């Protein structure tokens, strides 16, 4: 679906898509390394399976649509979608869930809307949302971090769990994520301070989650430095989330989590720097990006705090994706020389 945006790129030496996508992949390296350290082989299996499935589906979709397969496969966009999606999945998830998710990401969210550059929704988040809505049980089985459980699954064991050869002892290896733990704790009447005093909570959030979030932050800062993404979206997402969280926390710090906990839990950092900044589905005007990002931050807090799903970044991003055409329409920057009296929609 093509929406009319009146911004044209006047830069001649704009880097091509594959260059940008490669930089996004480089920026994910610290987070992937951190996840591997904490969660073991399951993370790597997710990534490899997702990339293979995504390339296969992309190839099939291009072939069916009669488009040249090779140049589009080489633009790395399918690989980035696959990697971002894989990083949102719990490790050791069954292989067919990855395939179903990527079917919705590549075929439904991307190619049914016209392929790269035309998708109104972020494909990776569509995939995540489809899976979390359809298979909530499988999608919330997060194995505990290695440093918490002390059990390191071998590669062959991980593979046989993923491919259904071996049933994992889920009760033994899964742990509630920090977000889940805080939510259920608060429901059962514990105070927030008591919950985070538990030994697997670090100074920001859960031990594994805070380091992963810091790694995403590092990669995100590199992306801003390399001018792959603009600062407006990530900063406004984080500010929007932290602002609402701080307000609620000041109202009652025993039943609302601290802003720092929100910033470094779940997929906040991944969402702020890598998901919300997707150039196709995000707002394109500088002021629009601030509105878009801050609204995502707001919805992350609202859905996370009063919703029932493990995390809310996907839903927040998808809601705001829907609003992007309207945001862009009302935030067109003034053209140089405009008298300022032009009325919107009468151009």
């Amino acid at each position, binding site marked *: 679906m093509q929406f009319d945006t009146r911004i044209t790129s006047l830069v001649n030496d704009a880097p091509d898509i594959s260059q940008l996508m490669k930089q996004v992949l480089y920026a994910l390296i610290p987070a992937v390394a951190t996840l591997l350290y904490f969660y073991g082989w399951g993370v790597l299996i997710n990534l490899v399976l997702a990339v293979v499935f995504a390339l296969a589906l992309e190839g099939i979709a291009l072939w069916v649509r009669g488009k040249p397969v090779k140049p589009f496969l080489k633009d790395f966009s399918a690989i980035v979608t696959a990697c971002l999606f894989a990083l949102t999945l719990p490790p050791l998830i069954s292989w067919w869930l990855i395939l*179903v998710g990527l079917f919705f990401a590549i075929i*439904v969210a991307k190619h049914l809307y016209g392929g790269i550059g035309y998708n109104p929704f972020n494909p990776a988040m569509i995939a995540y949302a*489809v899976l979390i*809505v*359809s*298979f909530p049980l*499988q999608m919330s089985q997060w194995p505990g971090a290695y440093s918490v459980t002390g059990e390191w699954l071998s590669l062959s064991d991980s593979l046989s769990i993923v491919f259904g050869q071996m049933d994992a002892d889920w009760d033994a290896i899964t742990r509630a994520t920090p977000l889940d733990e805080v939510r259920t704790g608060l429901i059962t009447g514990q105070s927030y301070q008591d919950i985070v005093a538990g030994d697997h909570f670090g100074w920001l959030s859960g031990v594994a989650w805070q380091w992963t979030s810091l790694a995403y932050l590092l990669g995100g800062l590199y992306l801003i430095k390399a001018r792959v993404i603009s600062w407006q979206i990530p900063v406004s997402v984080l500010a929007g989330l932290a602002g609402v969280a701080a307000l609620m926390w000041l109202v009652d710090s025993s039943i609302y989590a601290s802003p720092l906990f929100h910033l470094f839990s779940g997929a906040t950092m991944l969402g702020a720097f890598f998901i919300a900044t997707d150039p196709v589905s995000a707002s394109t005007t500088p002021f629009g990006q601030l509105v878009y990002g801050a609204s995502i931050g707001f919805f992350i807090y609202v859905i996370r705090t009063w919703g029932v799903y493990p995390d809310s970044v996907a839903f927040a991003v998808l809601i705001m994706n829907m609003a992007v055409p309207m945001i862009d329409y009302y935030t067109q920057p003034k053209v140089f020389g405009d008298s300022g009296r032009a009325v919107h929609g009468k151009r």
Partner: protein
Amino acid sequence: MSDVNYKQIIADGLWNNNAGLVQLLGLCPLLAVTNNAVNGLGLGLATLVTLLISNGSVSFSRHWVSREIRIPFYVMVIAANVTVVDLLMNAYLHNLHNVLGIFIPLIVTNCAIIARAEAFASKNEIIPSIVDGFMMGLGFLVLLVVLGGMREVIGSGTLFANASVMFGDAAQGLTMQVFDKDYPGFLLAILPPGAFLGLGLIIALKNIIDDRLETKRIAKRQQEKAAAEAASKVIGGVPASE
């Protein structure tokens, strides 16, 4: 009227001008109740009966109703019919009535019905109007059952589950287990997004089929034309050669 083209009415109702696929009317019940095939069948039948009676009565009384008040008149006729259908279903298909709930009374607001009253029944004789109502209703019914069946198979791996709420206990055996019991169920298909995706896919499929038929028809016409030209040449050429 002798010049009524029944073939055209039938083709329009079932395919060319299908209420759900082409006119995109009555989407609210269409999307809301089709989470399984039996619900689709139930609502489809109720809509079919309503269409039949409303088209018939609107056509019957079309000469006595002035243009200015025709819309309120249609609404009253349709509402009366729906009330009858609603009460009948509540009496004889009580379980199904419970499942479909508010969507039975809401048939009043199904714009497919008032659209047929306005576009067809108010301008045609009774018999063609009834045929039109039946065919439109049938097209809608088939779509509801197909969409419901599709969503049910993908969503829970069964087909015609709960058939007994409609046909009584004798229909227990009608339920089919399409996938085995281990099938985890693709919940999205049963939820509202699945209805939109499913309807979109069915419409896309219809458009593909129409496209194919159209290209075939054009090819055939060209062939016939060429054959006719060739034939006329031969005919024209025969005397010359003799």
